[in-house]
């Protein structure tokens, strides 16, 4: 089955991102295709490489990056939501004259059209939120 995943909450405060990660991992292990994971609302905060949890806890951002590397997974952060919350890649840094960027490996910033397109292409869109 072709799946699309939507993550609407940030890391740690809510379980949504953990659940989305476990679901995506299980779906890939069972041979399903995950065409895109889209991060919206506070979900964009999953995509900052500055995340530094205590060492005895899971590293939610690195975990997504690892999964993307192993499965060539498309992790897309919504640009409008990211701009509001300070999640920045090199292009956005240049465009908005910021002094840094913080996008994590394996994530890319793009528009909401990527979410709609995933909804059209996938057999199922599975959303994780509060």
């Amino acid at each position, binding site marked *: 089955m072709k799946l699309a995943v*939507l993550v*609407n909450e940030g890391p740690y405060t809510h379980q949504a991102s953990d659940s989305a990660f476990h679901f995506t991992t299980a779906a890939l292990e069972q041979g399903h295709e995950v065409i895109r994971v889209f991060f*919206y*609302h506070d979900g964009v905060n999953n995509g900052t490489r500055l995340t530094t949890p205590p060492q005895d806890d899971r590293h939610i951002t690195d975990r997504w990056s690892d999964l993307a590397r192993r499965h060539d997974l498309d992790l897309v952060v919504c640009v*409008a*939501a990211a701009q509001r919350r300070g999640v920045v890649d090199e292009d956005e840094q240049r465009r908005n004259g910021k002094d840094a960027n913080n996008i994590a490996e394996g994530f890319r910033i793009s*528009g*909401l*059209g990527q*979410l*709609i*397109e995933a*909804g*059209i*292409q996938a057999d199922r*869109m599975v*959303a994780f*939120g509060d």
Partner: protein
Amino acid sequence: MSEEFTSGTVKKFLYVNRRAPHGSNYAQEGLEVALIGAAFEQDVAMAYLDDGVFQLKSGQDTGKIGTKNFSATYRALGDYDVKRVYVERESLERRGLSQEDLMPLVYKDEDDDWEEKPLIHVVSAEEMRRIIDESDVILNF
């Protein structure tokens, strides 16, 4: 956009809005998705239930809380080819509201000499269940 992947496929998108317009920005960002999504020539409908019915309340004023009053943006739904906005009657009644308290949203019907027609349909919880059941892609904000 990757039109080569999406052209020809028309799915029933339903945006389910369950939260109050202020207090969190789920409503504002949910509306942004719906308006972007409408440009993809899909069959787009909006559903408002629970506290989400407050999103369509007329006369919103955010001056004293210092947040953006985006309620005028709902009037754009009709311009973006969204022709169906469903509001759950039970959710309205539980909050002491009726359709008269909501913004008079309209769309221009191209099949009827561009006559302005009401966008909002107040439906029962049972009808709302059926509308959700018949949708292909459901985004819940």
